[in-house]
């Protein structure tokens, strides 16, 4: 059956979000991987340039559903650094608590997704049922299960009172029990270990060369955690370990994420016990003075970098995000060498992809002429209207006018 090119994506049951991988197969062995990104591009960086800083807070939170607090906090940290505003300590602790709760939710979600990709649906159902504990807790504290709207420029919006702190501690106890059970399963269940070991290996040198971040990089022995290397919020006061592993494959990544959960519970208990009294926010000017800042945040998937450039008005001049999945995607091609087709879904799922965070590019590579050119939004729209008129006989300009007149656009 020679060499076969199989498309995994853009629509595929293995991927939660659209991305295109073209896998060349020889029997069941993979010989080549081609990637195309950009199916989830929504123009958030451009939209952020036309809105004020206050309007940008909810916008940047909605970059991703699972790591929403990461993006929101990283943006606030960058803007607060430009304006030179120091937020109160209580606000820093509250940001830490919500960030760590988000990490719990994200890692439990990953465990379920990994179970589903290897056909172990029972693990999916159990871990997502336990994730409901954290979701209910976050709903009680912030009002919503994802996209918490907790951050404001200059601090946080809501306070966590004594009753909610009790609930946090109780939930952490329950979750610690369940996480110990999952660590037991992941290290002892034979079929799971068979599927996860030896799959998607990447060596330590390649991790450093390709810039892989987060638990994916830490599973190959590279000790890089922004919470320890460059502490932000309240992490400078917390005591915790950075978990690394030497397995270098998907099994190592699972072990790293599960053990990180145990460290998260330690941090949560410390934060709730030591939370200082005080205000939760300070006044923040509407016009931010000119300057630029880069802020880094350890999202559940890795290092999230935000760059903000201000020019003295109330709108930012440039906002740039680099999501962790963008750094990890480069290594997927290296990980898939010499593996079977059956390993592709679990390898892609092991970097914990969040393609919504990733797609930010507006540079198009003209493959036929070999030149790089930039296309504006108006040009792209006209190109697509021409394409459909030529190939399929549909005129979208007319359809758009009709819907606008009818008032349903």
């Amino acid at each position, binding site marked *: 059956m020679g060499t076969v090119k199989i498309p995994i994506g853009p629509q595929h049951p293995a991927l939660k979000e659209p991305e295109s991988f073209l896998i060349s197969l020889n029997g069941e062995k993979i010989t080549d991987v081609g990637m195309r990104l950009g199916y989830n591009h929504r123009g958030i960086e451009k939209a952020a340039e036309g*809105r004020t800083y*206050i309007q940008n807070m909810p916008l940047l939170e*909605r970059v991703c559903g699972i790591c929403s607090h990461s993006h929101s906090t990283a943006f606030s940290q960058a803007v607060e650094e430009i304006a030179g505003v120091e937020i109160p300590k209580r606000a820093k602790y509250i940001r830490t608590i919500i960030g760590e709760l988000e990490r719990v939710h994200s890692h439990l979600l990953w465990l379920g997704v990994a179970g589903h990709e290897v056909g172990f649906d029972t693990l999916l159902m159990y871990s997502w049922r336990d994730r409901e504990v954290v979701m209910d807790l976050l709903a009680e504290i912030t*009002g919503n299960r994802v996209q918490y709207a907790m951050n404001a420029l200059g601090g946080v919006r809501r306070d966590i009172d004594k009753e909610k702190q009790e609930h946090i501690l109780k939930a952490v106890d329950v979750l610690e029990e369940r996480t110990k059970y999952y660590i*037991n399963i992941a290290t002892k269940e034979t079929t799971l270990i068979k599927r996860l070991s030896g799959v998607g290996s990447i060596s330590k040198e390649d991790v450093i060369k390709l810039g892989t971040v987060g638990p994916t990089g830490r599973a190959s022995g590279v000790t890089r955690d922004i919470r320890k290397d460059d502490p932000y919020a309240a992490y400078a006061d917390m005591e915790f370990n950075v978990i690394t592993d030497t397995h270098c494959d998907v099994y190592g990544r699972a072990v790293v994420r599960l053990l990180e959960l145990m460290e998260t519970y330690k941090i949560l208990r410390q934060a709730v016990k030591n939370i200082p009294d005080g205000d939760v926010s300070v006044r923040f000017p509407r016009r931010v003075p000119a300057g630029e800042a880069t802020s880094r945040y350890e999202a559940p998937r890795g290092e999230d970098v935000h760059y903000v450039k201000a020019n003295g008005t109330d709108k930012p001049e440039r906002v740039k995000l680099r999501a962790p999945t963008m750094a990890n995607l480069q290594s997927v091609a290296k990980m898939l060498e010499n593996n079977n087709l059956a390993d592709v879904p679990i390898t892609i799922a092991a970097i914990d992809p969040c393609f919504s965070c990733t797609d930010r590019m507006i540079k198009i590579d003209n493959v036929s002429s070999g030149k790089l050119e930039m296309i504006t939004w108006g040009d792209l729209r006209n190109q697509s209207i021409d394409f459909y008129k030529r190939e399929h006989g549909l005129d979208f300009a007319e359809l758009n006018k009709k819907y606008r007149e009818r008032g349903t656009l």
Partner: protein
Amino acid sequence: MRRPGKMFREVLKHLLKRPATTTYPAEPARIPEGFRAKLRFFSEKCVGCKLCMKDCPANAIFIEKVGDTYEAIVHLDRCIYCAQCVYACNKSALEMTKQFELAQFDRRNLKVKI
């Protein structure tokens, strides 16, 4: 000790437990306090400063002067339920209710006066 079928005992215990499914819409959904859904407007408290309009990321709320009082119109399909307007209002004239079942068949019904 590694063996296949490690979840066996735990799985069999679940035969006797109640299922963890919530049968919405047969039973009502559990909504937390502080949930952010449809907006509510107190026109007697509004002074027409339009700070909520300025701070809305989605251009979803419009304040108009009708006679002596102010009226608010919300585009429910544009609103992202972030409560930035609630936070911005100095007179507490806006509040988020828990009414989330807002779906309609016709888009024109989603522009409501609150």
